[in-house]
Structures are given as structure tokens and as C-alpha cells.
């Protein structure tokens, strides 16, 4: 099973975030801006991004507090799912230095390309938070 519907993916990481909120209380805020769920998403693509946003983004700052925002929206040719945080951020160009981050994000990008011809976009700067977007093309069989 390489893809699961976005609705069930959402359900599982909402649970995950609820658990993290139990641990960190008010230190971790979560916002959802889900506009569409009627598309298929390769498995194990969203979860690592959400974990990164909590562990390295929000918990990586001096204060250890922040907000993780998860959004999805539909375009003419694709669906986008974005995981954003206002936490520590990182320099995307420097990624190869940090093996753990590098491997995680590279894996997700590779999966997206192989499974549905999708891609991963990273916008981040140290201290400015980060914004990682999964893009699923409608043409490559991702559509229902």
C-alpha cells in the first residue's frame, strides 16, 4: 500500500499532535487550514514533516515554544500539503551537513517522485521557522 487517503493520514497525525500537546502543553500550538482531503498521499511523507516541525522546529528554539500549521489546498494541476512552523528553522543549502535531517527530507522527496511524480519544496532560514510543501500532481494517478 503506497498511498493512503489524505483523510486517514490527517486523522493519524492529528492523534500524533494531540500526544505531543499532552507532553508539551501550551508550549506547542497547532493550527489546521485543511481545505481539501479528497486525494491520495504516499504513505510516510507527511508524518516525518510534522515530526520535524515539532522536534527540530518548535522544540529546537531557545524558548521551545511555537506553532505548527498544517494546510492543504487544491490547484488546477496539483494538490499541496504544507507543514509550517515558526520555530528554529534551518538553512536548506546546508542540509547535506546534517545527516539526520538530510536523510529524512531526501527520503520523503524520493518517495513522492517515485510513487506519484510529486515533489517537495523547502523554504526555511535559521531563526525564521520553516515551511515544507508536498506537491501531488493530478495527472500522475494521484487523483481519485
Amino acid at each position, binding site marked *: 500500500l503506497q498511498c493512503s487517503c489524505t483523510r486517514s493520514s490527517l486523522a493519524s497525525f492529528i492523534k500524533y499532535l494531540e500526544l505531543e500537546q*499532552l507532553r508539551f*502543553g501550551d*508550549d506547542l500550538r497547532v493550527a489546521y487550514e485543511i481545505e481539501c482531503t479528497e486525494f491520495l498521499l504516499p504513505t510516510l511523507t507527511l508524518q516525518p514533516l510534522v515530526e520535524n516541525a515539532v522536534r527540530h522546529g518548535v522544540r529546537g*528554539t531557545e*524558548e*521551545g*515554544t511555537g506553532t505548527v500549521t498544517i494546510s492543504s489546498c487544491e490547484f488546477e494541476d496539483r494538490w499541496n500539503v504544507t507543514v509550517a512552523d515558526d520555530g528554529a528553522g534551518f538553512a536548506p543549502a546546508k542540509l547535506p551537513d546534517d545527516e539526520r535531517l538530510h536523510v529524512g527530507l531526501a527520503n520523503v522527496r524520493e518517495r513522492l517522485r517515485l510513487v506519484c511524480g510529486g515533489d517537495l519544496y523547502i523554504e526555511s532560514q535559521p531563526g525564521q521557522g520553516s515551511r515544507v510543501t508536498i506537491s501531488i500532481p493530478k495527472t500522475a494517478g494521484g487523483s481519485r
Partner: protein
Amino acid sequence: MRAFAIDDEQAMLDELHEAIVAAELSAEVHDFKRAKPAITAIKCGCVPDVVFSDIELPGMSGLVLASSLKEAAPDTKIVFVTAYPDYAVEAFRLHADGFVVKPVEMARVREELDALFESSVETPPSKLSVRCFGSFDVFFGASPVMFSRTQAKELLAFLVDRVGGTCTWQDFGIPDDDIAVIVKAIKEAEADKQDVKQEVKQETQTNKGGNPLSEADVEQIIWNNGYGEVVSMLQVQLNDGQWYWEVTTRGSDGSQKTWVIDPAGNISNVDVN
């Protein structure tokens, strides 16, 4: 005892706090969700005896905390609390004083505290101390010494005051007549004690049996005969109804021999060759 509890997760912090209090009821526990405020508190003079800290903390990790702590409060002990036993090696490389794996149990906290403060906090000093300020009191360790006579306590207080200098009964203010009475009482008490000792000795003698030779006599006989050193001796009653000493000796060549000594002091070897 003052302790710091540091954990960024409220639930874990509560658990840690409760475990410390349960392990050491007298502990004054301060909670921190970050390492930095804890260091600030120490720099402001609130120095704990021990810090229980999570390792993964936002801003400043517990491992960095350990090194700052060694600078700010060298005498403060640090015990790491973590869900990841893999951190243990790294923790001890930074000279952690202890390590507890989550979930934190009261018994484990107690163990760590015992290991850290065994000599200094848990056991009160077992020596005699005298307190002169206020009412005069003498303590052995933590408990006061009871005097059966007030005069004895007064006398001790007087002698303590003289710090080893010469003093007479007159200095203490006891009339000569009373001294005579006291000395007589002491002598009588001593005599009583002697009597008791004598009786006890006699009783043990009779209980032991009928051999009139004492243990010292037996050793003398063995010595006189050059049989070596005595390893053991006991009294046995043989078929003739008499009590004999049965003695085991070790000769200069290391061989053991058994001897029997009759009430008259005659010694014979009973080893089966």
C-alpha cells in the same frame, strides 16, 4: 536538602517532583521547565544540593547544563533523568553523579540520594558533642545523653568549663562530708559489681563442668609440653563421669593433633594413627 527538578514536559516534571519529595520528605524541591532559569537561580544564590534534570531540553540541553553547573555550583550533584538509556555513556562522560531512567520511581531516586549523600547527610556524626549555650546538654550523635543524677551533669558541665584545667572538690562546691559519702557510695557500688562478676564467673565455671583446670592452665600444659599452639579446646564428660579438656593443637610443622587432659593435668594423645 534542596533539590532542583528540571523537565520540559509538565507531566514528567510533576512526576519527578513527587518522586523526590516521596524519597526525601524534608526536601525543598524547585521545579524548572528549562535549564537556563535553573542556572539563573543558582547564580542568584539559590544553590541546590542536587539537580535532577532531563537531558533533552529546549535552548540548553541537560548535558550543557551539567558543564555550566560544574562552574556555577561545583558542589551540586547532578542526576540525569531520561527516557533514553543510550544517553548514559554521554552523561557520565560529563561527570554526571547519577542516572535515572523514566518513568521515575521513588525507590530509584532514594538510591541515588543514598549514593550521593551517604556519608554527609544520612548518618549523623556518631560522636559526643557538648552544648553550653542555653541549657547545658550533651549529645551522642543526634540523641541527648541522659544523666541519672543532676549532680553528675553539673559536675560534667563544671569540668567542661575548666577545659582540662585543675580543679578540686571545693571548687565544685561539695562539702568534705558529702565527698566522703560519695566516695563511699562509689566504692560500695564497685564492690557490688565485683560480687556480681564473681558470681557470674563461678556460675559459668560450674556450668562448664567439673574439670578444675582453667583455659589458661590448659594452654600452659600444651606450652610446657611443646605441642604447638592451641586451635580449639572444649570440655567433655567421658564414661567415667569425669570432665576432660579436649584440645586441638597445631604443631610447628602445621599438623593438627588432638589431646585429652584429665582433671589431674595428665595429657594424652587421642589421634587415631
